[in-house]
């Protein structure tokens, strides 16, 4: 069984924001996650880059408002890279 991109992003978000994985959904955002401020946002992006071994541009970083945005973006980038 392979872990889906969503599960991996959820695990990163859970670690970075200190919330149990069950508490993270595609609609989790800085609106409803306590520790999701601009600094934690940077940590979240760095952790995603590290986990998926890819680079996110400033525009892409900006576009991530919810966990679901990050999943979609990473799926696109992985597909584009043929991974």
């Amino acid at each position, binding site marked *: 069984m392979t872990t889906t991109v969503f599960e991996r992003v959820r695990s990163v978000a*859970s670690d970075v924001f200190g919330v149990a994985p069950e508490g993270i959904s595609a609609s989790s955002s800085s609106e409803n996650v306590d520790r999701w401020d601009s600094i934690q946002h940077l940590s979240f992006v760095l952790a995603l880059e*590290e986990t998926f071994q890819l680079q996110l541009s400033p525009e892409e970083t900006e576009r991530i408002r919810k966990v679901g945005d990050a999943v979609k973006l990473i799926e696109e980038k992985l597909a584009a890279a043929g991974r």
Partner: protein
Amino acid sequence: MQPREEIDRLITSGDATGASRCLAELWQREPGSAVASFLTSRYEKLRGTKHFTAHRLALLRSFTLEPVVPLLRAAAFVAGIDLTVHLGDFNAYPQEILDATSSLYSFAPDTAILAVQTRDVAPELWDGYADLKPDAVTASIARVIDSFQSWVKVFRQHSPANLIVHTLEYPPTPSLGVLDAQSDPSQSDAIRQINHGLRAVCRAHHGVYLLDYGALIARHGFSHWHDETKWLTARMPIAAAHLIHLAQEWLRFLVPLTGRTAKALVVDLDNTLWGGVIGEDGMQGVRLGQEYPGAAYQALQRALLDLHRKGILLAVCSKNNLEDAMEALENHPGMLLRPEHFAAMRINWGDKQQSLREIAAELNVGTDALAFLDDNPIERAQIRSALPEVTVIELSGDPATYADTVRDSPVFERLTLSEEDRLRTTFYSTEQERSRAEQSFTSKEDFFRSLEQEAEVAPVTPATLARVSQLTQKTNQFNLTTRRYREPQITEIADRPGWQVVSLRLRDRYGDHGLVGVAITHADGTSCEIDTFLLSCRVIGRTVESAFLSHLVEHARAAGLTALRGWFLPTRKNAPAKNFFAHHGFTQESSNGDGSLWVLDLQKARIACPEWVKLRILPGDKP
């Protein structure tokens, strides 16, 4: 079961040792931002059950460091350090240092790190270099050095904390291109001159250390290390993959500053010190020499020799026939290490955990002061579970990586190197001679007389300050109060009216032991109180402690005081000092949850210096 669920299960079931082993393994497998917060939150739950060294760290910086903090806290927990981090405001380090009422000082750090980039503190030398006239370059260099000088000086006036200063990094693409290397001074020369100046600034103060930031970046390659996009968007110049390396570099300072270092490294032989199995392959068959793969093992031996020169003891623990192993140790032409480099050896077919316990006892150190290097993952796993306090060094299967793995390990870092450190390894070989001599005497007294011990007591001086502080930080066994003092604190204590800080140096017929004892006392009304009294474990059990005490008694009596008081504060380690007061005629006056208070009536009691110790008292300058 997933490792995280397993860790939570272990924590819930109360198995702190198992949980922290799994946490360390998880970190070993995937160190990074993704697991850092998980690790930290779980280690925090273990606070009550496992011993961590608490340490307060202030970060003063000119660039974004927020994402490094979780990595640093996780890596520190794995190393046994519970860090509280204060992150100074972005680029506000000069105000924070210069203002005595700033949040930096109210945080009361144990250590502060000053991380400033060249482009922030010397922008004209970073990207305007081509426009600068030579005298402007000189002025710029002087200005930057002066700024650092005043920051360090003012910091030291307001805080006794350790200070780690980043050096300035070099530009990867100089303004003049290849012409820069032909110029005098070149752009990198100018920055190099600043770094020279920084070293002089740091050396002029106690407890101020330099971190070679340029070398750290070079080790990983500037083009990989630097992330221009993150720099431009978030003022974060370091690529995600390298944040961990900055955290690890800081730990190389924090581990020795918190005393979580290893005093001895225990090594395996077959497939660790040489390639192959000596008992099967024989002298001709084992791989060790200047050609690959033997060269990889020689590189490891060279790394071990460097540790030996820094005063870290080496020991052998190998499952082998003694004669086979000794033949290789003594006679193999490729060996850089010889039997005299090892302070203890256990070469037998017994359990390695038993051997490690014996080695610790023979070297007079706790098992938590041991590091263990073995190519066999099963041996490593057994030691991890049987002796979780031992630092087990993880090796990949490739011998070419062994030397660097040892060199990278923070437990072997030292921030100062005293003469005692350099000499320590020879002490242990003369110690072996000494124990043999002890066995040949019929009475203890005869043995003590034969040692011809000369003890020299002197007030702490600038020259002995580093060693005195080091002894308070490192001595665990014969230590009545285990109070740890950094260098600036010792200076401050010695300056207090009525206080005295003295060191004890010991020589005997086998050689000079260097500074091995410290006592701190202060007058309190009509009595004298012992704040600190300690002896290095190398000289326990030869009555030097009585000689040292006799000096304190005479000193207090000469000052007209009528009683000598002292606390014994028990720890997990200081049982050897437990009966010290009772043995010397002190009576217990009171006790509380921390320990017991003992008193000696100076008008009645006499503590004689043992006749076989010659005691000399030297005058000295205060540091």
